[in-house]
């Protein structure tokens, strides 16, 4: 499995994401100005402040050349994982439903959260069991997941809510405690917490490993 990790101007978690991916497969950085995904079998859109988060988080990054290639890759069924700012970019690009709003408390949040796996039948969570709890840090200002009520009902019944903050541990006011969702095809996932910061026991809990491990074991989509 070869991972491609996108680097936008303003990305700041791409190196951690790259190192996390390299624990489970090959990985290299993809530059935002390139349309070439360099043969990646899976793409990671990392956290940070792409293009300064000008206008709205993810609003500008969505139009970068690499995102054209990522969109095409996703439409062909290729797995794409968006973390934090990457989640915001994927929502702005309409590759994922919903949007991320400023945290209810209007503050930057940086802490460990407990997540519950709601759907273990995605390429990102196959190594988990439904109900598993993962301890992963969040660090964001704009992480309140929002979609209209009817859309949320639809997402829940279609199993597109993959990760939820454990009861009482919703840090940002996300509707229905949603921390991570997938698209209809199940091959594009976004989450606010940072699994790439939770893969090494030296630095804390390793709840993020399951996501990279699952993805590394996923069947590559034939080119």
């Amino acid at each position, binding site marked *: 499995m070869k991972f491609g990790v996108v680097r936008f101007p303003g990305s700041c978690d791409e190196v951690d994401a790259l190192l996390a991916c390299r624990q489970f497969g090959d990985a290299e950085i993809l530059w935002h100005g390139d349309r070439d995904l360099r043969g990646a079998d899976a793409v990671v859109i990392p956290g940070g402040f792409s293009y300064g988060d000008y206008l709205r988080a993810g609003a500008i990054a969505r139009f970068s050349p690499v995102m054209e290639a990522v969109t095409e890759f996703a439409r062909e069924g290729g797995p794409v994982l968006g973390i934090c700012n990457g989640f915001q970019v994927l929502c702005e690009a309409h590759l994922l439903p919903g*949007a991320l709003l400023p945290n209810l408390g209007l503050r930057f949040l940086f802490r460990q959260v407990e997540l519950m796996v709601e759907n273990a039948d995605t390429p990102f969570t196959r190594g988990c069991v439904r109900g598993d709890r993962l301890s992963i840090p969040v660090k964001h200002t704009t992480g309140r997941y*929002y979609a*209209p009520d009817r859309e949320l009902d639809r997402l829940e019944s279609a199993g597109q809510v993959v990760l939820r903050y454990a009861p009482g541990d919703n840090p940002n006011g996300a509707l229905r405690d949603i921390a991570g969702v997938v698209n209809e095809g199940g091959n594009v996932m976004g989450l606010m917490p940072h699994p790439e910061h939770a893969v090494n026991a030296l630095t804390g809990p390793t709840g993020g490993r399951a996501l990279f491990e699952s993805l590394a074991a996923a069947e590559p989509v034939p080119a």
Partner: protein
Amino acid sequence: MRARVLIRPKEGILDPQGQTVERALPALGFAGASHVRIGRLVELEVEDPSQVPAMCEKLLANPLIEDYEVQILDGEGGDA
């Protein structure tokens, strides 16, 4: 032509900035202000004002969470 775009959170979306300001006003002695909503203002010079709504749909606003209102202002330099 000068255009002005007013962007605000959609009705029904919780706006904690607006709520905070709403709570601050009475503390400063201003009674009777309610439904405070905080959004964004974009001003731009455009050759073809008919393109502005499309600009809003594609970039300036996120129609899922924001309403926008386009105002076309008269004259080159806009209002005083």
